[in-house]
């Protein structure tokens, strides 16, 4: 199967099996490994990417479903320089093991794109689907608040 879509702003075409999945295609075929595999059933959010701007769990997304659409990964969020959100993430020293953080940042970026000054409650509601085992949640909230006030 040939699938054409935009990946981080560039039009690409990939050749895969009919039932190929977006996450494994991004990670293993295209070697953009910032997007993580962690549960495979959309329970943790580590694989979050944007599909036409909407935060999407790549692990349950058939590759065929993004044909003609625009997919953004963590690599596309900061191609030239880090976004204000990522700078805030560094300022708050958010990550510990770091494995879930691409997903956290992609989920948060989609929130700020829609709502540049979210309340704490809006942040929590929007971010609740993305798990962090190291327990960095409070710092994630602070980083989003920092990015929203500095935006």
């Amino acid at each position: 199967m040939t699938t054409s879509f935009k990946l981080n702003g560039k039009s690409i075409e990939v050749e895969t099996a009919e039932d190929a999945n977006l996450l494994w295609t991004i990670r293993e075929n295209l070697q953009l490994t910032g997007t993580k595999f962690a549960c495979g059933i959309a329970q943790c959010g580590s694989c979050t990417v944007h599909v036409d701007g909407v935060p999407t769990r790549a692990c349950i997304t058939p590759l065929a479903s993004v044909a003609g659409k625009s997919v953004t990964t963590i690599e596309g969020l900061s191609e030239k320089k880090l976004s204000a959100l990522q700078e805030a993430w560094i300022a708050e020293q958010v990550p510990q093991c770091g494995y879930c953080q691409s997903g956290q940042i992609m989920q948060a970026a989609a929130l700020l794109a829609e709502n540049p000054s979210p309340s704490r409650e809006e942040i929590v509601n929007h971010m609740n689907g993305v798990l962090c085992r190291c327990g960095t949640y409070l710092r994630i909230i602070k980083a989003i608040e920092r990015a929203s006030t500095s935006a």
Partner: protein
Amino acid sequence: MNMPSEQNNKPKLSRRQFLTAAGGVTFAVAAGAMGFKYFAEPGKNKKTLPDQEITAWVKLNPNGEIIFYNPAAEMGQGSMTALAVIFAEEMDADWDMVRIESAPVEPDTYGLQWSGALGGPMLTVGSRTIRGYFQALRHAGAQARNALLQLAAAHWGVDIGQLSTEPGTVVDAKGKQRISYGDLAALMTDTETSIELREIPESAWKKPEEFRLIGTDVPRRDIPAKVDGTAQFAMDVHLPGMLYGSVLRTPVHGAKPTLKNETDIRKMDGVLEVVMLDHGVGIVADNYEKALKAKRALQVDWSQDAQAQGYDSEAAFAKYQQLARQTTADSRKVSESGNYSGAMRGAQKTYDLEYRNDFLYHAQMEPLNAVVSVTSDKKSAEVWVGTQGMDGSRKAVADALGIEFEQVKFHPCYLGGGFGRRSMSGYVEEAALLAAKVDQPVKLIWTREDDVRYGAFRPISVQRMQAGVDETGELVAWGHYIAGTGGGLLGSAGKCDYYSLPNHRIEVRNIDEGVRTKHWRSVSHGANKFAIETFLDEIAHDLGRDPLNFRLRLMREHPREMKVLKEVAQMTDWGNAAIPEGRARGLSVTDHGGSFAAGVAEISVDEQYKIRVHRFWTAVDAGIVVQPANTKAQIEGGIVMGISSVLQESITFKDGAVQQSNFHDYPLLRMADVPEDIEISLIASEGAPSSIGELSLPLVGGAIANAFLSLTGTPLRHIPFRPEKVKAILNA
């Protein structure tokens, strides 16, 4: 790609190759097992120094760059930065010139013994990295600084006594001259100057008040790469021609597989190898999704002779309870003092209660995985892995392939969480066994379901607590009987040196069930401190005593711990604070690896019987704190993981098999359920650095249960406190 070494993803050269290959390198400080050697010209000295002696903590390049070799795994705890800070402090290095690379896997030099001396395994466990390496790295840093002073003295022809350092620079105040560390390194290219690497007594090291890096918030070096997606986990390694591995493992630990449809599986699209393992069947395919598809198609009969066959964790509680209640049993004594039986008999009032905890799963976010490449002659290999046990994993690959340790090139990657799970090397061995069957590298990836079902869990236990008090309400006898399955893991933290319990008996009683158990963040501190601290509050509640004063009385001979408890009491205005309607607070304390912490939780119970933790306060004495902000992050993370484990997490077995498989039935705490605020106070101390990563988690069970007792008058005695259990208890 950013590996823990902050290098790109090119395979890292071994130390030996580095010295011979890097023409521009001028000198290095090399540490033998105990003593240090200096060598000016790598090529020349290579001849006089056997390879195994060429090991080092640091390399100084002529451009002034200082390479620090990090001996520990980086799994989120931040020690890769903290260890470099400790070394740079004593070397008086300019922090901006310090780069961090992974040390070669040479345990004789870089490992840590349990005594704290160098030369044990390179095993990042037990919250021992900072406390273990602190003195050795300060000494090494002081030696490096002294060597630079010698060089400058020789260069200028002045007495070393008139020289001092400023960050990255040797200063001759008398002669009014300065030279940077980098320029000193450059001088070494054309000098035969012999530098003696001297023992520097501790009295000549910096005094704590002279620290300019230790105790400040130096940003973690791993964080930028974890924010732009370039941090390299083993999961992210990609090699030319790489194949993919998946393994179907036995649902009942110890059962052996018989594969019924190997021929059909081998015919499947993309399948290159089917590998029989003792505990399962491995697939190697040219694509991961195809490997998974083949794995799902496997038809396997499992032997019915495993020890774990039929194990039922819910039913097993009765066995553990009976074992905990036996007056004589095959026990391992954790601690005994005074006359426990006599004191119990003579007590005015006695207490006898039981506490329970389920198995817990590590749930590190990165499922286990490893990449192994075996040369076509099968005589050497390379491995890319995130592991807590670097030499253990390297050895696992060597043993699996029947080759020497030295023939395995090891590439450490960041760990997407460890928590004890990555101190085992079975997954690395599996990758090696799969890679041995093909001529290309293999990336073995565990699914989340694999990771849960073939987990190695924090032990289940029943804890019988006994105590006697005299007519004044003084605790005069203390008994703690821990029964479960988990062997040596069960007894961790049973002993409470900070309480005066003159007549006590603490015992572990184990039944080997053949199921997999393992160290899990804080080991059994989480379960045992819950039982101890909850029991204390139940006694205090019964006696009408304030939990704070009750504990302070028990700590009367332990001023250091008392100070920590008083600090958290002050932070929370204990006893006087206006607590919102419908909420209550509970207190608990714990020790870990020389550290001490006290915590307070403020909770409520909602209409669905769900316990909500609104706020959490912690006071901590962990000795000298190298990185305060990062330490707070670790304390905070431990509390969040603790809340998750205490309120939600449970692994159960039926018919010998784990019942859970992924985050839908093993739920972790989500953002909506973290406290609004976690307040942490680090007690100023000049004591030796002590445990941090595992310190706070054991506070949580007791603090929540004690808040619940205060709120409802009803105790919680079985972790986790899920809504259905809370409902049953409150409606009982």
